[in-house]
């Protein structure tokens, strides 16, 4: 069992942080890599990108939004409980290079994934402007950590309750217009990554996105996570999860993410009904 040593609730309890004992993974993990977790015997395998790793303590940290049955089961795990299975580190690490000025853009729980990459981008000597957004102020996560991980942090909310009133893309355009941007990293919901990539293509700024397709094994043996990149089929679990945003077929990814929507909805509702009845 992989024991939970720290648990936090963020964003009005919709987003949960788990710090988990996993020394072998903590020792090897690099920014951009993910793990697969399974809570119990009958659970499904869920991929989550690590928000932090501490090799000395032997722990990894995941941050996830409660969106369905499995994440609801995860939410119900307390400190001292554990995951039956945690597998990783999986996927390719982020390619880190000193290029100059970099924009890191994050939306929703994508900010958790963006965090180690942003810090690493800064650590290799880049000038990092970070833009993070959420629907409303209470849903914004990791503000302090992101401030520490970047040189310049800009905040946005869709409803204007905090920071810029509007989308991250609007702020990103302003920064792009200032000039000198060499690289953009965008992590968040598919429509957001698509919008960012469309804009940066106009500006001809290379853009990395971290994709979140459906996965089963996470080791390249099933192809459930396949995505079209530059007209070619890639397996996000071994070829990614990061890809050139200008080459990704986001519309296809969005449709594939909806493959089990009806099953997922039913499953989650049943779980909530049983849980509330207790």
């Amino acid at each position, binding site marked *: 069992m992989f024991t939970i040593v720290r648990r936090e609730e963020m964003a009005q309890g919709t987003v949960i942080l788990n710090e988990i004992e996993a020394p*072998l*993974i903590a020792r*090897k993990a690099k920014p951009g890599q993910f793990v697969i977790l*399974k809570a119990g015997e*009958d*659970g*499904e*395998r869920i991929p989550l990108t690590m928000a932090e790793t501490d090799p000395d303590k032997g722990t990894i940290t995941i941050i996830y939004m409660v969106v369905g*049955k*499995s994440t609801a*089961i995860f939410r119900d795990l307390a400190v001292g409980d554990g995951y*039956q*299975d*945690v*597998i*990783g*580190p*999986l996927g390719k690490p982020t390619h880190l290079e000193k290029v100059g000025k970099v924009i890191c853009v994050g939306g929703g729980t994508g900010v958790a994934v963006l965090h180690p990459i942003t810090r690493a981008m800064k650590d290799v000597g880049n000038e990092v402007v970070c833009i993070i957004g959420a629907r409303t102020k209470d849903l914004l996560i990791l503000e302090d950590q992101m401030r520490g991980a970047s040189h310049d942090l800009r905040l946005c909310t869709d409803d204007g309750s905090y920071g810029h009133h509007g989308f991250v893309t609007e702020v990103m355009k302003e920064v792009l217009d200032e000039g000198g941007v060499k690289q953009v990293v965008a992590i968040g919901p598919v429509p957001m990554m698509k919008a960012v990539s469309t804009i940066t293509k106009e500006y001809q700024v290379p853009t990395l996105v971290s994709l979140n397709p459906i996965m*089963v*094994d996470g*080791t*390249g*043996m*099933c*192809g*459930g996570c*396949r*995505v*079209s990149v530059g007209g070619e*089929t890639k397996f996000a679990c*071994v070829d990614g999860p990061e890809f050139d945003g200008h080459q990704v077929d986001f519309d*296809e990814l969005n*449709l*594939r993410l*909806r*493959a*089990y929507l009806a*099953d*997922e909805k*039913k*499953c989650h509702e*049943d779980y909530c009904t049983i849980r509330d009845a207790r």
Partner: protein
Amino acid sequence: MAEKAAKQTKNPRVPMPEQEPRIRARNFLEVPTGYTAKMAQDEAARCLQCKKPGCVDGCPVSVDIPGFIDLMAQGDMTGAIRNLWGKNALPAVCGRVCPQEIQCEGKCILGKKGEPVAIGNLERYCADYERQYGTGELPPKQPATGKRVAVIGSGPSGLTVAGDLIVKGHDVTIYEAFHKPGGVLIYGIPEFRLPKEIVAQEVNFLERLGVRVECNAVVGRTVSLDELFAEGYDAIYIGVGAGLPRFMNIEGENLVGILSANEYLTRANLMKAYKFPDVDTPIPMGKNVVVLGAGNVAMDAARTAMRLGAESVKIVYRRSREEMPARKAEIHHAEEEGIEMFLLTNPTRYLGNDEGRLTGMECLRMELGEPDDSGRRRPVAIDGSEFQLECDLCIVAVGSGANPLLTSETPDMKLNRWGYIDADEKNGKTTKKGVWAGGDIVTGAATVILAMGAGRLAADSMHDYLTLGW
């Protein structure tokens, strides 16, 4: 098998009872239900106890077939299973999934004029008997050598190596990437052909012998080969299989409703998605299902889809019945269960709707031309023969390749041009010192028993290395 059974012989083999096709096509219980004690003894009595038995030559791990059958005929099941264990750590598996008709049974002298001894059924009976009524007494082990061996992958070849080396006194740890050991036995071969409980017990048998099994360990990611050596392992065996699914590379392949057989079977078998929503992993339920390919994996996928409630399941294959690589018995089982064969048919593109979901495929009719490299006649498209096939689920079972996850992290080990590991076919040695490999990661996708045979050769060579030197 069906053709053979039609022949009248004085001494016919004892058939193994099976579930009725109509009933079994909708459940996940094992199809053949097993011999009774009387059936097993009657069948064992058919063996002629040849002085120069052909059957042993036909077995890739050289099981002492007349020996264990003689013990069975005498009613000594405990003796028979111990005899089997001498050469085969996984008899309950082999009795079920080996293609005996081209191996041991194919060489049985009785097969020349009638039906060969049902060696597979007898092996299965022995193993099942031991599991249910056995003494639980383990085979003897050599004194500890103090040498440590890491086995990467817990499929048939890895389990064989582990079983062989543990009884030779070495300290063995298996590393498995999945959360359960067994490799293709657990994620690939369905419950109705090989109950997962049996695989778990075969692995448990090795654990009782002293083998350690570390699951959730992705060698190449969680730990590298060199790190394993640094941790104090003296030798490593790689048996990671050929788990990279091939697709057709045709238009529309990423539509929702098109899955590799690996994904479909992993969901169904390893994740037990056939029990959804009692378990959390979903599996697409197709009404009209098409399975591409005609190997054993294709039969397994098609029969699984039928059990999940499909209205129609079609096998689409570009060659003819003659060339189908699946075991005859499996094709027969599939047809009995209502699976249709669309032979000499090749898909050219998938068709989908606005939601990106599969609605059908366009196919071409084929005819057979000249033989190709594999010796099989090459299918050639018939011009203007396009037609559409309606389907909402397509399972692609056209083969698999070498998964580069481990090998790409091990640059000092030579691969061949298809990405498989270059290993000496006589002993399994790779080009990296102290590392052996065998099974599908060396040969490409083959059978359970061939992987076990490769494991046996490697284990012998590893034992020599550990006791004598490289």
